[in-house]
């Protein structure tokens, strides 16, 4: 086929343009803005590291960072373990399996304000047995006195994680094909060698599906760092309990019009995500197994 190189540029040109105009360009601009004071109305003023210094002295920043890290280190492992467990349960093609797969996948397609407003009602702790939502109503059925969720400092963040975990079924799209491609003969060999089901899972299945686990964990860490809508619609009684860095960024950029300060927050987030991803990649070398090796 003639003019391969020309055609390559022609076909990828939409992405190339988008990359320059919507990603690379804005990244350079936001880097510059993070060293300025800019309120949109008056020209940007160079202030050096002022924004970053202010940020580190800002109590709300440490609250938001702590919350974001809590969601990452508690929420993401739960998300991976639960998603994987459900996928293992859904792997074997027994009669009616499609119905079960659909049931678990379904919640993941609801991600907007609507479902979160409903979750607000579901999490209602109630007062003196009045206005009790679904969750504490269910807990009451089994004799547990449910917590105050968003209205208590200890349970406000777990409430947000619980809501996110309801959508865990989205990850079966990644896990199921991976589990299905585990070589049958390896499993049988382990079986013949007398390995218990658990041992087989750890030494055969897990290495084979490690790229899929790595992929979902990485994407989930990034998604958690971007978390905005959940704490926005289901805030704690004191927002400092649940606010994420993304909420802090939104408030500064679009409510106080502190564009320079907001850009500094964005870059701090970016550095954190990069750091976590690199750590993730470093450990991946030890536990993620690719066929090509």
């Amino acid at each position, binding site marked *: 086929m003639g003019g391969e*190189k020309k055609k*390559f540029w022609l076909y*990828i040109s*939409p*992405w*190339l343009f*988008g*990359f320059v*105009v*919507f*990603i690379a360009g*804005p*990244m350079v601009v*936001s880097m510059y803005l993070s060293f300025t004071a800019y309120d949109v109305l008056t020209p940007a003023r160079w202030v050096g590291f002022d924004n970053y210094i202010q940020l580190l002295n800002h109590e709300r920043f440490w609250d938001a960072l702590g919350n974001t890290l809590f969601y990452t280190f508690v929420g993401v492992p739960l998300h991976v373990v639960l998603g994987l467990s459900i996928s*293992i349960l*859904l*792997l074997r093609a027994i009669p009616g399996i499609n119905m*079960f797969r*659909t*049931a*678990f996948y379904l*919640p993941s*397609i*609801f991600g*907007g*304000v*609507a479902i979160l407003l*409903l*979750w607000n*009602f579901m999490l209602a702790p*109630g007062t003196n047995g009045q206005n*009790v939502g*679904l969750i504490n*109503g269910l807990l009451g059925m089994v004799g547990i006195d449910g917590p105050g969720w968003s209205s208590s400092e200890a349970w406000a963040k777990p409430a947000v994680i619980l809501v996110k975990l*309801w959508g865990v*079924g989205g990850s079966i*799209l990644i896990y199921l094909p991976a589990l299905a491609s585990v070589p049958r003969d390896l499993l*049988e060999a382990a*079986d013949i060698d007398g390995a218990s*089901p*658990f041992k*087989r899972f750890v030494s055969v*299945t897990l290495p084979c599906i490690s*790229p899929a686990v790595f*992929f979902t964990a990485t994407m989930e860490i*990034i998604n958690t760092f971007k978390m*905005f*809508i959940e704490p*926005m619609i289901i805030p704690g009684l004191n927002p400092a309990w649940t606010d994420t860095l*993304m909420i802090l960024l*939104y408030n500064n*950029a*679009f409510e106080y019009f502190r*564009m320079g300060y907001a*850009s500094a927050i*964005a*870059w701090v*987030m*970016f550095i954190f995500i990069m750091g976590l991803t690199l750590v993730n990649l470093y450990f*991946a070398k030890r536990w993620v197994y690719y066929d090509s090796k």
Partner: protein
Amino acid sequence: MIPNNKPVSSNQKAQTLKDLPLLKSKEKVLLLLRYLVLVSATILFMLPLVWTISGSLKPSSEIFTVPIKWIPSAFQWENYVNMFTAFPMVRYALNSMIIVFFNILLVTISSFVVAYGFARFHHPLNGPLFLVVLATMMIPEQVTLVPQFLMFSWLGWVNTYLPLIVPSAFGAAFNIFLMRQFILTIPRELDESAYIDGCHSFQILTKIIAPLCLPIIVTVGIFTFNFHWNDFLGPLIYLSDPNLFPLQLGLYSLDGERQGITDYGLLFAASVTALIPPLVLFAFLQKHIMSGIKLGGSVKG
């Protein structure tokens, strides 16, 4: 833990006739156990939907009763009728549809064209640039949010749908990735024979590749629909005129203003209604989702 799919063959030496029924009954018990776990977990996952649908058909006084009333004492279908007069539901839903429609159209076409370029044309920079595409999946959009907003406001696009639609015309990294993986599974011989028959590369794309890629095109379409139907941050930042609000932002403004709505049944009905379109789409197209995703090939991470 692991499904043991070994066929029970009757000619295995280790099995005497006496063991066979025993094995079968053991398998039956395991299968029963599997169903028991599946059914209870499914019920647990479905309860939020059941509870909210039932709540949307109750008089407000019955929603929060303890013990939980699963079946309303009297079905209040008027919740669904009244919401149309209480909020501008129809306008919000139409606005959402407009935004979603243009995004699906643009992002599917642009991502597909780009994926074809990466999957089929040799160039020394093909590999490195594709890595850049993958890397952009890792870049959180917050880093670009502020400059993008400044750019769109400088263009005078704030309070229009343009900032929510135009970026889709230039492909989306995850879609490009999924589509490239799918195109790689199509044998090149098909391209070559079409080329010999006198098709040029764009005709090969539209006549040969596109029909075979229907599963992944539909999958990307569904993902795009769900993302933009549920999107909240974009409309929140760019839209201030209530007449332009999509459904999610409309619901948020109802809740945000706390207009003293104590008629929870109405709020439930409106929120449940917002869940219907993704649900219907999924019901009709779900068989494509699983077949569209091919993660094999040269994926790193």
